């Protein structure tokens, strides 16, 4: 492992990282693995194998610490929420209200429904104890005696795996009453959802956990003050909570030395689309997008020897980028797989890390059609509370459908642009923005493909637009 090696510390700035990757440490094992390091160990799904690999030592360590000291370590680690928004976890934890006599709750967000994202599933399915250990530590830090894992209903076989891990942890004294003799009691319960992307939004999740429709709440009050059953609540993503384990094991400062800038630690990326090796990868955020796509260690290049056309790097809600802007920023710098670099250039020329759902489109894909499926998704998932979101998502889907099926008018493209502008920022929850951004980015970067559809209603039904001017200027031929 390269913890503490030149990849993981002291390096700042893209040039240095590139140098580090391509020259002086080229022959070292560069990929720091914290979460998935034991993913291939036989039987790791069960307590014995997990324990043998050093599992539950972080829990033992943490339960001897003061809860505030754990929060402090997490703050020092620089860990940012892995659910999409990237909010600093330690800071979020320090906001939790502690009114006398009112129970507090930790809720693990395992709703994972953002198209392109399937990393939490991997963690829960294959290394469930890592999440359970993270939950024990985090529950202790926050003072949650009853912690809930809210998992999307479709992952119907995973609750059994999690409950098995919970039972094993309990049998070994890591859950239940008076854990490890500390006087701390904690139970973890698994709650299934029933099919609703919106329940990944934390206040909708809380409503759902209360047995209601997943309608997001108006904030404030924030969950940290008034969450589930009006009690102070922290909602964190699966991967965020799993990352607490290595943070406690190695110490927050050491964790923060991995990665670069404010992108500390490692990040799980679920890669899909037209690539040779779709799957879940753990990266240490010092590699370039180009390396991630083309190296055999990760995606293994574009499938069938095709060319790269576009990519949505952080789940369906973040802006799509054409190949040229994906591999290099507008300033001409190598784009890296981290929070800062992926968003370099703002929405004009950049995108976002988001949830780490990395969707790759090859030269044969139609951006209009792809955007249409996403528009349909958001229309389907809108909870319907706010008119801009409820009406706008349906309207955008309808227009995109017309364009895709050769019934579009040239004014439709500007109309689409107008509608998305009117949704963005005018809704109760960020789903409205999440629906607007993919459409905006598709038009911003691929306007000529939309225009071609409108101008060629017959031809566009027979063939795809292809690469056109998006052809990768780097001509990354592999």
């Amino acid at each position, binding site marked *: 492992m390269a913890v503490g090696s030149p990849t993981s510390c002291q390096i700042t700035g893209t040039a240095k990282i590139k140098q580090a990757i391509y020259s002086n440490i080229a022959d070292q094992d560069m990929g720091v693995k914290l979460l998935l390091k034991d993913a291939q160990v036989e039987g790791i799904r069960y307590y014995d194998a997990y324990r043998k690999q050093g599992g539950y030592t972080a829990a033992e360590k943490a339960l001897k610490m003061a809860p505030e000291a754990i929060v402090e370590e997490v703050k020092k680690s620089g860990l940012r929420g892995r659910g999409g928004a990237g909010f600093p976890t330690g800071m979020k934890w320090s906001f939790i209200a502690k009114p006398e006599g009112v129970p507090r709750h930790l809720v693990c967000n395992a709703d994972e429904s953002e198209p392109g994202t*399937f990393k939490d599933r991997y963690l829960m399915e294959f290394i469930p104890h890592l999440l359970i250990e993270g939950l024990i530590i985090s529950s202790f830090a926050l003072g949650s005696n009853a912690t809930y894992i809210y998992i999307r209903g479709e992952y119907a076989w995973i609750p059994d795996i999690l409950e098995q891990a919970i039972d094993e942890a309990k049998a070994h004294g890591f859950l239940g009453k008076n854990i490890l003799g500390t006087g701390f009691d904690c139970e973890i319960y698994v709650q299934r959802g029933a099919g609703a992307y919106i329940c990944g939004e934390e206040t909708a999740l809380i409503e759902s956990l209360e047995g*209601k429709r997943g309608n997001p709440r108006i904030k404030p009050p924030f969950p940290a003050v008034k969450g589930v059953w009006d009690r102070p609540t922290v909602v964190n993503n699966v991967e965020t909570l799993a990352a607490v384990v290595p943070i406690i094991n190695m110490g927050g400062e050491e964790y923060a030395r991995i990665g670069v800038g404010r992108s500390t630690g490692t990040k799980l990326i679920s890669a899909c689309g037209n690539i040779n090796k779709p799957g879940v990868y753990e990266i240490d955020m010092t590699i370039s997008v180009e390396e991630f796509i083309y190296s055999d260690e990760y995606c293994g290049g574009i499938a069938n020897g095709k060319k790269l056309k576009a990519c949505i790097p952080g789940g369906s809600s973040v802006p799509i980028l054409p190949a040229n802007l994906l591999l290099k920023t507008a300033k001409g710098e190598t784009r890296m797989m981290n929070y800062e670099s992926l968003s370099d250039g703002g929405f004009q020329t950049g995108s976002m890390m988001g949830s780490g759902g990395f969707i790759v489109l090859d030269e044969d894909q139609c951006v209009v059609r792809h955007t249409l499926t996403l528009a349909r998704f958001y229309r389907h998932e809108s909870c319907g509370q706010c008119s801009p979101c409820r009406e706008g998502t349906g309207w955008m889907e309808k227009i995109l459908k017309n364009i895709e099926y050769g019934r579009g008018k040239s004014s439709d493209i500007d109309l689409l642009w107008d509608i998305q502008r009117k949704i963005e920022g005018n809704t109760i929850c960020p789903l409205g923005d999440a629906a607007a951004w993919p459409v905006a980015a598709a038009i911003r970067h691929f306007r000529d493909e939309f225009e071609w559809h409108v101008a060629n209603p017959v031809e566009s039904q027979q063939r795809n637009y292809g690469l056109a001017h998006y052809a990768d200027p780097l001509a990354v031929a592999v």
Partner: protein
Amino acid sequence: MPAFSEEKLEEVQKIIARYPEGKQKSALIPLLHLAQDEFGGWLDVPVMDYVASLLQIEPIEVYEVATFYSMYNLKPVGKYVFEVCQTGPCMINGSDQIIDYIKARLDINVGETSADGMFTLKTVECLGACGYAPMMQLGKFYREHLTKEKVDAIIDECRKNAAVNN
């Protein structure tokens, strides 16, 4: 009036015990899953009313929830429900062709049930298996990397299971 078995009622009590005193409504979503599995794969009004009575809440509170979440079926479905994902990442890996193939094989449209009551075809949005596309949910599990041959094999498997169970 539908009713759970003793064993299921114990499970219901266990679920309710996960929540604080008086917050038994939180058990609604898990209970609707149980009820749907138990009473024929869909939620009829009497079933929803029964769940309301178990939780001591108003029937309308159950209807509100049952109509919100996509996994609850509000009308009868076939013995086997094929829920094929059609969102972007699956689409670029050929989900449209898989959907068309299933339609032709079973001679039904999306949302319909085959004449023998055996199969229902539903299209769904991203199920978190985008790297293993195209895919569908069948009961509790996912079927991934679908091809026409795999669809054939799944249909055969279902028919065989149904014959054994009858």
